[in-house]
């Protein structure tokens, strides 16, 4: 099987795929990084969002071939339960997730936003997250957590 070299969460990994079109989402999940979720595979829900060179991207829409040579960061690369990233800490503090299936994607989109706009308005947050769907209705808390993570009270 052909192999591909990827830079995931700061380390180089070699992954195998029967074809060059395998979506990055499946590559990540097969490598044990299951934080990015399969929600639609259609680029419509944001559950699979990761950072590609600092930009929030839907990993179901990027092929393994195209992901080569880019810096890939998944939710696992942000922080851990013991050492959460400030956005993760804010999500925990605000008790954001219900089922939490959308949460990884929300956090990755929020991370991309805050890296470019340290003090977003609530509207900025809503716009940045508008492609991330949540069925449980955790939206209000998501906005509050992102505002809190940026040092603003939402």
């Amino acid at each position, binding site marked *: 099987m052909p192999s591909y070299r990827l830079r995931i969460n700061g380390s180089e990994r070699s992954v195998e795929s029967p074809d060059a079109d395998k979506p990055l989402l499946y590559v990540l999940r097969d490598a044990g990084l299951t934080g990015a979720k399969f929600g639609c595979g*259609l680029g*419509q829900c944001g559950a699979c969002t990761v950072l590609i060179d600092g930009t929030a991207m839907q990993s179901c829409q990027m092929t393994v071939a195209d992901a080569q040579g880019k810096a890939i960061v998944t939710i696992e690369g942000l922080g851990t339960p013991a050492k959460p990233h400030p956005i993760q800490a804010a*999500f*925990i503090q605000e008790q954001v997730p*219900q*089922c939490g299936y959308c949460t990884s994607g929300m956090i990755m989109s929020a991370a991309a936003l805050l890296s470019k706009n340290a003090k977003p308005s609530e509207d900025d947050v*809503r716009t940045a997250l508008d492609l991330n769907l949540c069925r449980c209705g955790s939206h209000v808390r998501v906005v509050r957590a992102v505002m809190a993570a940026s040092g603003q009270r939402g």
Partner: protein
Amino acid sequence: MNKIVRTSGFSRRALLKGGALTVGFALSGLPRGAFAQGAAGTRMLDPKEVDAFLAVNGDGTVTLFCGKVDLGQGLRIAMPQIAAEELGIDIAKINYIEGDTALTPNQGRTSGSNGIQRGGVQIRQAAATARKALVELAAQRLQANADDLVAVDGQVRRKSGGPGIDFASLVVGRQFDVKLDPKAPLKDPAAYTLVGKSLPRPDVPAKCTGTATYIQDFSVPGMLHARVIRPPAIGAELQSVDESSVKDFSGVKVVRIKNFLAVVGEDEWTTMRAARALKAQWSEWSGLPEQATLAQSMHADPSLTAQTLISKGTAAKSENAKALTARYFWPMQSHASLGPSCAVADVRADSATVWTASQGTHGNQTTYARFLKLPKDKVRLIYVEGSGCYGMNGHEDAAAEAAILSQAVGRPVRVQWTRAEEHGWDPKGPPQLIEVSGAVADGRIVDWRTDMWIPQTTRGLLNIPLLGPEAAGLDNIVGLNTGLISQNGDPPYAADRIEVVAHWLKTAPLRPAPLRSPGKPANCFAVESFTDELATAAGLDPVAFRLNGLKDPRAVEVLKRTAALMKWQARPSPGSNTAAAVAKGRGIAYIHYKHSETYVGMGMEVAVERATGRIKVERVACAHDCGQMINPDGVRAQIEGSILQTLSRVLMEEVKFDRSRVTSLDWASYPIMRFSDVPKIDIDLIERQTEPPLGAGEAACAAVGAALANAVFDAAGVRLRTLPFTPERVKAELGGKAS
């Protein structure tokens, strides 16, 4: 801080560090017992026995076995709060196990908002009985009077002080061997230290760091991946399969059992590609009704049987009565879970283990045993959390399919649905047609009649057939009912005569399911919209009109507090500026859920854009009385979710279908709410800590549709009676009115 704990034996450890209850996991994030094959069979599982719920361990911890499951609604913290409070032990010392047919008692399906209301109250009684037993054991040991002793911090000690005896040394190594005592004295709520506190949920840190194991992430050694091939039409039969079409995909095998068709393979991506490539021939089928005329065909269905559900009082004769009739329609809707359903099953010759996100692990044991042809006690279902479910999405179908496939191939099998399968094949919230006629005189309701047209498959315990066994021609027994969807069809207000008649339809267009708050959002939409229509006919303010007809002080309080949250200005609807380019208004609705549970007042402020027909919900205000709250922040989260999910259902959701199949198969054709649609939400939680808990998972859903419709009428003077309130529909209504 969360900490990974290696568990020995079956227990999922819960421990408290730095104030947060955390759950530790073994192996790939699940309790080690989850890997044990077959039914354990050694634990006491009779829910009449304390030992079914509680075990005191040698290390001073207590394991709580809960038959209800946490779908993100917070039972993993609320149940330990109840148990620790009643037992007299630090919550950090509670280990928690949920929804495992081999380990937890059958507490019924996690549905109908009864997790705490029934399940929690049962656990409270078990813990109270256990505490009584512990105190009595200690009394013997200490040669003291039981009344002079108290259970606290995992010990029984004299109220006057002095050293205590650990729970562990009182019962360890043996069981309580006592039945749940309904009279075991309960702790005085005034003395609660855990119940009523917004303690953080133990599952949240893992969910925020990508380390939680969902069923979609779960795997067992030797597992194969499978994709089920759905027919192009719901009732189509499989005529032929060309297996050579997938011969180039390595490690992939085709499984066919009658009309059940799947591909199974070693590698998931390869299996997915093979599923797409597989060539199969299906028969034609077009047995679905015409969508455009669904309401009319329900109304005229020849299979209807009428049943009077409520009939009380006699209509008063009144000279100046104003009579109205209106017809409301709630379409079929999908659970639209964010993650498509998934399950893993390992079926052996003599036993089966199924890992499932089902809300009813225990209830499914019999169903699965039947089609697997195994004894019930050899089939073990273990709950693993999945993407949020709000009744019965595809989880139970996926689990049945995994089981059938594992039995067929002799290896553990994981079935993962696609987005199109979830949107197309999850059981649907059924369509509801509701007609109300009534009359108002002198500011009060003198006559009320509700007629509802609803599928009979929603009544009582009838079969919701699982897809896999159905297609494979296997025994497919009683599933579950879809909830009592006829409840709350009568007004909660005083009326001289009230009659409610159900017209049962023999079939439902698509498989019906209990979608969150089954039936009540539609019934309350009709009842509370019509109440506003009567108030308008009477020329009265909607809040004042409702208060006129309410006596229950809790009802009155919830309505008044909703009005207060909204700074409600008393006046009849509609407002005076309905022709404005952006018309603004407010509406209110009230429900006493099932007439016996939670009280909800729901207010909305909206802006209706005349040119586009777009409704912007600006603010939602909700007063909520669910009796005792175990974890107020958990209640708040449930209300937020109920409001947003139902607003989404009301504003945008309708399953689309042609004569053969569902056609709304993705998020573009079946959109749900986005961040830009989310209103400001204000919630007033009414504290009644000495009252029984009534449930918070769904009551608020019921009042959303009417509050919104009433606000739109107040703003723009048009009455929306059919969902969803899409811009096209609103614009058409406005056009009719505005011309």
